[in-house]
């Protein structure tokens, strides 16, 4: 499998150096342990918002570090949760007395590594709270839901609150609300290739797609055949809207996210169908985001996230943000 890399074991470090050089005004990249932090951190009296997870999902999370979003991010090895050392180092570089909020995707590894870091912080008396993102409705069982696209929204909302001077409790509250109001689901047209493995992690036939895939190269829940986007979107949106109990008149934010190898023109087509689908049900798309925001290496396909908006979440979403991957209002 061909990739634009130097070697499997330098993928993450080379990319981190690339990020550092591309956005010197926004982020500082620290190595061993690896983390990415706002150039202006630590910010006195501002809650630090920290996330992290395996690499291979760029721009998540490292591309969301900056004013109005994450204070720091901890990139693990490819698809591997970061270690407590990384998390603690990022925390010490970010946290003020206002405390730190961890945004954790619902994977066993992510949860355990952040938990260990939190145990240390509690011993040290650093105020810490966490929010677990579990938005992927592919699995009907709530505690088996993966954290996917909603993570970006939760990071944005929590970061906006922190930037406005909200307390740790307040940041955690809005983050949890954003999480509870969001659902995601994905579809893959092809698997991704983990560099160390050097071949796709599963195989899809020429006409096959997989519904309910995750973002770690894992297969999904249901294999079916390629169909016009309108049909695929119908299936995906139905799952989201049912689970979130969205109703006519509800305002929503829609994120159509490319998984890495899907072209922008396709993503706009998917978004069009999402917009039509919602319009037909009088669900209002008040805000939207279309592009590669959380990838799975070179997987082809997309995820759709819908979030129910209210005035508070809308205001936090609209607040200024200046990160490598998300930027507005500044």
């Amino acid at each position, binding site marked *: 499998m061909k990739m634009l890399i130097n070697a499997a074991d330098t993928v993450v470090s080379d990319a981190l150096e690339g990020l550092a050089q591309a956005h010197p005004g926004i982020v500082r990249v620290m190595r061993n*342990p690896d983390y990415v932090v706002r150039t202006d951190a630590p910010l006195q009296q501002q809650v630090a918002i920290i996330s992290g997870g*395996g690499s291979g999902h760029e721009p998540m999370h490292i591309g969301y570090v900056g004013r109005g979003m994450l204070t720091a991010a901890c990139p*693990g*090895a*490819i*698809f*591997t*949760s*970061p*270690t*407590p*050392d990384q998390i603690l180092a990022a925390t010490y570089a970010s946290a003020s007395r206002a405390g730190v909020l961890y945004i954790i995707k619902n*994977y*066993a*590894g992510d949860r*355990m*590594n952040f*938990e*260990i870091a939190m145990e240390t912080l509690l011993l040290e008396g650093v105020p810490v709270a966490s929010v677990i993102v579990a938005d992927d409705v*592919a*699995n009907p069982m709530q505690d*088996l839901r*993966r954290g996917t696209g909603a993570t970006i929204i939760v990071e944005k909302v929590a970061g906006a609150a922190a930037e406005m001077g909200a307390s740790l409790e307040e940041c955690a509250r809005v983050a949890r609300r954003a999480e509870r109001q969001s659902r995601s689901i994905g579809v893959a047209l092809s698997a991704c290739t*983990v560099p*160390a*493995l050097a071949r796709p*992690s*599963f195989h899809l036939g020429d006409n096959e797609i997989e519904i309910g895939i*995750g973002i*770690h*190269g*894992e*297969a999904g*829940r249901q294999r079916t055949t390629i169909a016009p986007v309108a049909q695929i979107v119908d299936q995906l949106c139905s799952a989201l809207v049912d689970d979130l109990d969205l109703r006519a008149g509800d305002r929503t934010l829609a994120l159509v996210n490319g998984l890495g190898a899907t072209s922008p023109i396709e993503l706009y087509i998917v978004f069009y169908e999402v917009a039509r689908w919602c319009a037909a049900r009088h669900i209002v798309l008040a805000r939207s985001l279309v592009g590669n925001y959380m990838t799975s290496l070179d997987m082809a396909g997309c995820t759709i996230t819908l979030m129910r908006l209210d005035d508070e979440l809308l205001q936090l979403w609209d607040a200024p943000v200046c990160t490598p991957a998300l930027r507005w209002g500044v």
Partner: protein
Amino acid sequence: MQITVDHVIRFLERAAALIREHATELTELDTVIGDADHGTNLNRGFSAVVVKLDALQDGDIGTILDVTGKTLLATVGGAAGPLYGTAFRRAGALLAGRHAIEGADIAAALEVALEGIIERGRVQRGEKTMLDAIAPGVETFRSAIAEGKSLEEAARCALAAVEEGMRATIPMQATKGRAAFLGPRSIGHQDPGATSAYYIACAMVGLNVDPPSDQNEAQLS
């Protein structure tokens, strides 16, 4: 017989060697029901442990195990890092200051390591994880020692139980870890974590004999 610092160091070196040797196999297993990183991650972690061992020749067993746990925690990441890291650190805490231990100590250390995994992973047996290989091994070891079996004999019985537990993960449906996302699709595949646990257990067997020859290693694979 007694287990000394030397034995423990040799165990860790052999564990690292076995993990390196089987890294691809572990990653392949993790490709089927996980995210294709288990071998890569553990290999990175145990290689880092081996580097640390040099400086620990004069340490006690507890310290060595604690450093091992800390190193795995700091370098493995994913689910396996916290789980193995916690297990080694708990065993290290129990054996703090000790330069020589025997069967009952090892049984107790394995017990607290096991508890560490259960607590950290919030996991029970039957969820298709490393626990399904480790738990029967620990139980078998403890009973064997309680029955007065030799250390070597107890370790061999335990290894057999670990292997059986590892194979028993094949028909299970995962309800913990990444494989759980697959639901029924996780059935029919051996758990990567249970498999790495088996190789680590292999490294424990024969601690009182010389490091295994190439032939021994070949048999393990």
